[in-house]
């Protein structure tokens, strides 16, 4: 269950944020979420998030793209309207394979890239006209925000966070 009270600690540097995350994790506090203006390298590992599975989906999307390319070209170029490719009228997919390889490659990449981005958006619950979830607009500019659950230990947390270089610490009552 989500805690009803959270602390928002705001940082202005990604390196300071990284060491703060390590310090907070070392004290076994629960970090709910971190909002950053850009991806911070290694943050997911420092937070202890589970590794992403998007690479696996990308591989599968690539296979789908490859299959689409092969099926499509086999139908268009060989079955439906047999083509004389490069002066070699063999009308066989495998014998004309070299001329199909660039398209097989392109569609593999096309499917993997586009479907991966769409998957990422859906998984992150982002779609057109969606209202922004970040609690502070400055996290879209040059500030980093760490959200930590509070369970009657705000004083201990505040001293810890001040020591890690937070420029601002706010206690927020989350209204659900």
């Amino acid at each position: 269950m989500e805690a009803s009270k959270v602390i928002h600690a705001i940082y202005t540097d990604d390196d300071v944020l990284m060491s703060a995350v390590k310090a907070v994790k070392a004290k076994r506090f629960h970090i709910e979420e971190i909002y950053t203006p850009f991806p911070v390298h290694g943050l997911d590992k420092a937070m202890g998030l589970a590794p992403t599975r998007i690479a696996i989906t990308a591989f599968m999307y690539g296979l789908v793209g490859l299959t689409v390319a092969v099926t499509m070209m086999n139908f268009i170029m060989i079955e439906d309207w047999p083509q004389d490719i490069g002066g070699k009228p063999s009308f066989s997919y495998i014998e004309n394979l070299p001329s199909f390889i660039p398209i097989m490659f392109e569609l593999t990449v096309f499917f993997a890239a586009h479907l991966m981005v769409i998957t990422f958006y859906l998984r992150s619950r982002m779609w057109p006209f969606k209202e922004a979830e970040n609690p502070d607009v400055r996290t879209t500019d040059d500030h980093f925000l760490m959200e930590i659950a509070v369970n009657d230990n705000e004083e201990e947390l505040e001293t810890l966070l001040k020591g890690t270089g937070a420029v601002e610490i706010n206690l927020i009552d989350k209204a659900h």
Partner: protein
Amino acid sequence: MYKFSNKLKTFSFILMILGALGVGYGFMTSHKSLEDVKLMLSEEASHHGSGHGDSHAVDHNNHPAKASHGHESAHGHEASAHHGDAHAEHVMHQIHNRPWSALYVAAFFFMMIALGVLAFYALQFASQAGWSPVLFRVMEGITAYLLPGALIVLAIALFAGKHIFIWMDPEVVAHDALIQGKSGWLNKTGFAIRGLIFIAGWFAYRHFSRKFTKAQDESDDNKNYIKTFRISAGFLVFFLYSESMMSWDWIMSVDPHWFSTLFGWYVFASMFVSGITVISLITIYLKSKGYLEFVNANHLHDVAKFMFAISIFWTYLWFSQFMLIWYSNIPEEVTYFITRIEDYNITFFGMVVLNFLFPVLMLMNADYKRIPWFIVMTGVVILIGHYLDIFNMIMPATVGDRWFIGIPEIASVLLFAGLFIFVVFTALTKAPLLSKGNPFMKESEDFHY
């Protein structure tokens, strides 16, 4: 400081002795006279039934059509009078060429590893890479083989002469208008001079970069580092030109009628990926012996990423060269691939599996790039694949369909592998394994993925 263990030293000597014996055996058994070859051919014909003999004759009739094939066109001219004799003579030449070609392929393969590593090393300096300085001494050790290796390649090429390079045979050139037209470039003197210029340029860079990085260890400013940075950038320019011309001279000219405009790039991709693979193999070996304590899985991960990426790059170039020639189907171009697909089917397509499919599937997963035995396994396959790549570049022109990977080929690999191990590991003992003066060393040691 690294100490060359006696075990490894003995191992390298055993390789060299076994290799030398095998190479000697290859030369002894290849001394077949025309009579022997005729006997052999008739035996082969009776073994395979009469049909095979016929197909040989038919095949020979077709040779002028595939005229760009150096040896065959040469013998095609003489063939009109005595078909059987000419064919036997042709086969005899191919049998004589085999030990030379085997020696040349192996010598080139190990030279190319050292040259690829030298280019990689220069690239690390020129781009001021922060992850790689912990591996610089390993790379410097490998590039120590470049000078002896390249001189050996050049010596074999000049010594073998017409056994590898048909255009070095004045008899052939006299009957071949196309080679005559190219004789301004393809002549023995020019070949030797160009070769020596390439080698001198490569060696000069290797010598001075090594000298400066060693001096950098002792100094307290970055002057030597800046000098290395400058000569690295200059070397890369020289390298791209010299490597491209070297690949025309030392490889492409074995088929003097045929040419490909991206051949230099293609050979470069092969040497680059082989060199990077050897860096990772030697690093893993040294680490297993308790050296290189500052190298960790993050550095291996980056080297493995290069193995993965350059394997794909190699495939891209291999396919670009193949597809354009296949598609346009111009006789003097396409004969190159017809020979390879008809007579070398297994090595030609097999190497695509070894050099592309295998590394792509094995090294795709990020976690696998950090597991030493996984990198070793993939690396060995990549090296075998790129040996076959060089094999496919040379052999079809020199031995035709009389090829086999037997004692001459394997012994040549052993001979140069032994020499390579001896030279490289001797060079590794000459300097501390950490080039501590490099200004990026702290970044490299703390590097994490």
